[in-house]
């Protein structure tokens, strides 16, 4: 088992052993339940499917509802698969808790970034805007500038960066350090920021 599902709770700060403040994000990591085992014999690879959170049972698709009922599982908000060297060590319905992680672990956190709406090129792609405001120029400070040449090629190249919808995409932040684990409350304290808004679902994957 190399990862867990969790909920971003918010950011704050704690003191390290030297008394220096470090910024932390607190994640409610688990308790997750094993939903399905993927073994080399049946699936060709080894992994564990785990579920986290809760939702109304009536909102589940029918086949899922039947499967959950058969295995005595509650209705999960999200279900994700994680690599596992030894999936048979756990059974369907077993709890996976934050004890998976310990202080000093390096993790990567996957999440969905906050949606920013329709944004211009300066915010969305880091363009510099068009120069100054002299020589009769106005209204061009945050403009993209030229988007291509003229008669050749007479078109705009595909992939030209322009204004548009920004955010609400999958983002992975790597190399984050676990600074504290509160096992009894299933909380993980990760140094630094992670993607997404408060209460959004994140994947935490152990990398070391």
């Amino acid at each position, binding site marked *: 088992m190399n990862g867990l599902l969790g909920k971003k709770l918010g950011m704050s700060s704690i003191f390290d052993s030297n008394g220096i403040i470090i910024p932390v994000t607190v994640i409610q990591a688990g308790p997750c339940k094993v939903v399905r085992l993927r073994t080399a014999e049946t699936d060709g690879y080894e992994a564990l499917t785990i579920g986290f959170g809760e939702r109304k049972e009536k909102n589940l698709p029918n086949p899922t509802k039947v499967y959950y009922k058969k295995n005595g599982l509650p209705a999960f908000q999200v279900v994700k698969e994680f690599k596992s060297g030894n999936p048979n060590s756990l059974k369907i319905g077993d709890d996976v808790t934050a004890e998976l992680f310990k202080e000093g672990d390096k993790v990567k956190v996957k999440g969905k970034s906050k949606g920013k709406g329709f944004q211009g090129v300066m915010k969305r792609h880091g363009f510099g805007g068009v120069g100054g405001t002299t020589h009769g120029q106005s209204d061009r400070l945050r403009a993209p500038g030229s988007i291509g040449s003229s008669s050749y090629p007479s078109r705009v190249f595909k992939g030209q960066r322009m204004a548009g919808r920004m955010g609400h995409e999958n983002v992975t932040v790597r190399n984050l350090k676990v600074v504290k684990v*509160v096992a009894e409350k299933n909380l993980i304290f990760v140094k630094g920021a992670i993607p997404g808004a408060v209460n959004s679902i994140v994947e935490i994957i152990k990398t070391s």
Partner: protein
Amino acid sequence: MFSINNLLETENRTDYPDFHPGDHVKVYVKIIEGDKEREQPYEGDVISIRGSKENKTFIVRKISNGVGVERIFPFNSPKITKIELLKRGDVRRAKLFYLRKLSGKAARIKTKKS
């Protein structure tokens, strides 16, 4: 608002005297020099207390060799071993940033008559 204190049901430090903006305090700070650890006192006026829960900090201002020095202390910092309350100040504001513009006799804080 999100707070680790609420989450873990922990409290802020309670071993301090009850100090307020305007008070003259002595903060004993742990300092690590090489492998030795010692205490260094820092004496000055509290000019601001801000934040709540684990985000609470206070600013202590003093004049050192004619230069104003301000130090921000996190309230729960394990580096603070002890705080001594030396004088209570009589001030009308919660934030005494106006002291930065004053110098000499004008920058004094009245002592509270108890």
